[in-house]
């Protein structure tokens, strides 16, 4: 494992055709989920904030696919819809949460940034940049004590490296040999502030290297890369019981929230190279090259996924709002 800032481009993993089709479908589901979610946000059905995962699918799907969710746990931050789908939560319940309905993942009381599910080992969802990093470190420490070989995966963005708690947490994780994988989804923006305008070092692995843990920068656009890296890194963490810091290079297609206007702070020209390396496109091309699917079959799959999600949106709309009495439930008064 690299401890330098040199990008490590792992070989694509040799997965079965069936697995590759499944991964494509999962990434498509996230992409289409966010499209429909954005539509419902603009329709006024979703209130507050909406942080779209579009563009970053290969990171979450690759890493979560490699997890053993019978013993591993996830602590996430606010761009969490895609990760909720990747752990296997039903889109109906995720949409219902976004609509503020009783069938929501958090019974309609959390909203977009606050999805939790004990059964799927998904411990949030966190609205505070960097707010979950220390919580994840505690989860990792608990897993170490439990001795079943479980590890914690914590997802956050590049902006979180600017918080004090990131540094405090990595220090403790290294000091205490916590089995945790910190995954910085470097989507190039801390809200509207580009990496070179918010970070003293733009190779983010260098900012984590001071804590004596292995660090690795990977291509976050190619799921073959993220999945292979995840499998190798998780095996190492389980064996060595040491934390690892990953910087996955990717790009956020939308603004920080879908209500903001990214062209205030970035140009279409700088978006272009990323859009040409779209994670769905990369895997789709591979499937075509390896003659696993045709372009037409991929498009048919996309339409099928979109139609399924439309039905999920409709099902979520059928869920009633929480009852008034639920305002005062689940809280000490």
């Amino acid at each position, binding site marked *: 494992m690299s401890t330098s800032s040199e990008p490590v481009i792992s070989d694509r993993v040799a997965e079965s055709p069936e697995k590759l089709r499944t991964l494509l479908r999962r990434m498509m589901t996230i992409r289409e989920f966010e499209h429909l979610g954005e539509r419902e946000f603009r329709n006024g059905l979703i209130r507050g904030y909406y942080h779209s995962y579009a563009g970053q699918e290969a990171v979450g799907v690759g890493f979560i696919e490699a997890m053993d969710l019978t013993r591993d*746990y996830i*602590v996430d931050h606010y761009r969490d819809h895609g990760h909720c789908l990747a752990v296997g939560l039903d889109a109906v319940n995720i949409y219902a949460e976004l609509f503020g309905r009783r069938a*929501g*993942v*958090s*019974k*309609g*009381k*959390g909203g977009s940034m*606050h999805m*939790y*599910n*004990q059964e799927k080992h998904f*411990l*949030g*969802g*966190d*609205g*505070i940049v960097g*707010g*979950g*990093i*220390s*919580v*994840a*470190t*505690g*989860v*990792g*420490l*608990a*897993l170490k*004590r*439990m001795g079943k070989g479980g590890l914690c995966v914590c997802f956050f963005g590049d902006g979180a490296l600017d918080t*004090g*708690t990131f540094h*405090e*947490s990595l*220090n*403790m994780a290294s*000091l*205490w040999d916590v089995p945790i994988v910190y995954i910085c989804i470097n989507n190039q923006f801390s809200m509207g502030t580009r990496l070179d305008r918010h970070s003293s070092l733009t190779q983010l692995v260098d900012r984590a290297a001071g804590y004596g843990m292995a660090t690795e920068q990977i291509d976050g656009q190619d799921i073959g890369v993220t999945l292979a890296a995840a499998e190798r890194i998780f095996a190492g963490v389980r064996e060595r019981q040491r934390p690892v810091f990953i910087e996955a290079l990717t790009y956020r297609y939308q603004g920080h929230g879908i209500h903001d206007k990214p062209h205030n702070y970035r140009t279409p020209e700088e978006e272009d190279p990323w859009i040409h390396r779209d994670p769905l496109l990369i895997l789709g091309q591979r499937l075509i090259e390896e003659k696993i699917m045709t372009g037409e079959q991929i498009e048919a799959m996309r339409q099928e996924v979109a139609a399924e999600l439309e039905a999920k949106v409709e099902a979520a709309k059928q869920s009633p709002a929480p009852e008034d009495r639920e305002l005062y*439930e*689940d*809280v*000490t*008064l």
Partner: protein
Amino acid sequence: MATTTPTKTKKMAMHEALNQALREEMLRDPQVLVLGEEVGLYNGVHYVTRGLYSEFGPERVMDTPISEESFVGVGVGMALMGYRPVVEMMRMDFSLRAMDQIYNHMAKIHYMSGGDLKVPMVLRGPEGPGPNPGLTAQHGQQLTLLFAHCPGLRVVTPSNQYDAKGMLKAAIRCDDPVVFLEPGPLNNKQGDVGEDDYLVPLDQAEIRREGTDVTLIGYGASVALCLQAARELERSGVSAAVVDMRSLRPLDMAPAYASVERTNRAVVVEYAWQSYGPGAEIVARLMRDAFWNLEAPVLRVSGKETPLPYAANLEELSKPQVEEIVSAAQQTLK
């Protein structure tokens, strides 16, 4: 919560009572662990964790770096996984560094998850000007209000050694996050403590002294001041009742209402700054629910509204004084 009455008592300092509570709970439940600054090898700055490190080892008594925000977060994470962490703030003043974890995580995850997750942790530490003098402005503050303001937390503060043990044990067994505020001025003070395993409820105020003329209402360290003032008032023929709130969230007003029904007068006493403080909430509830029983305005005696000064005379002046309580009580009787 079920409570038991101990058969034997023994005199000890409040920190020893708290230490007994921690030790008994750690022996009873392997999921209970302690973490914080200098809780282990150093033996606890205010002696509360004394001996625990040598008895239970570094896995259950964890010395942390000076990273308050993140070690509170570690506590939250371990609590989510079913452990029962007792996180020590060396001084509650330092919890200001950890407010994001306390307000946004410890207090809210249960609610935000629609009840799916629980955070059974205790955040504890001393607040206010003591035990030692000269703590000054950043180490001796009484920040009770900041915690009591936040739904999702239970906020309790014992006024005596007996309660300190029983309430800390109850806090550790509670499935809700509890902020356990130890009155700094009482840390080294001696009192009777039950020797066996007993619990004191976390949500019940208690009448400490019956009286017929005026009700003195306090919490934490100010209860001792109220009791002292009541003894002085007795010499001038005034019968003062004393109510110990014990819990500030939830706030159990029933004993105060019952007492005011008899005395028709009240004085609220606290070490905290007066403006917007917990005392203001107590007064507001008296206005709402006990208004027709009151024959005089409810008065207040509080810590002075300045940062805690260093000079001995100024420091003493800044605290609520027994004479001020006596004088306020007499004023309600005019």
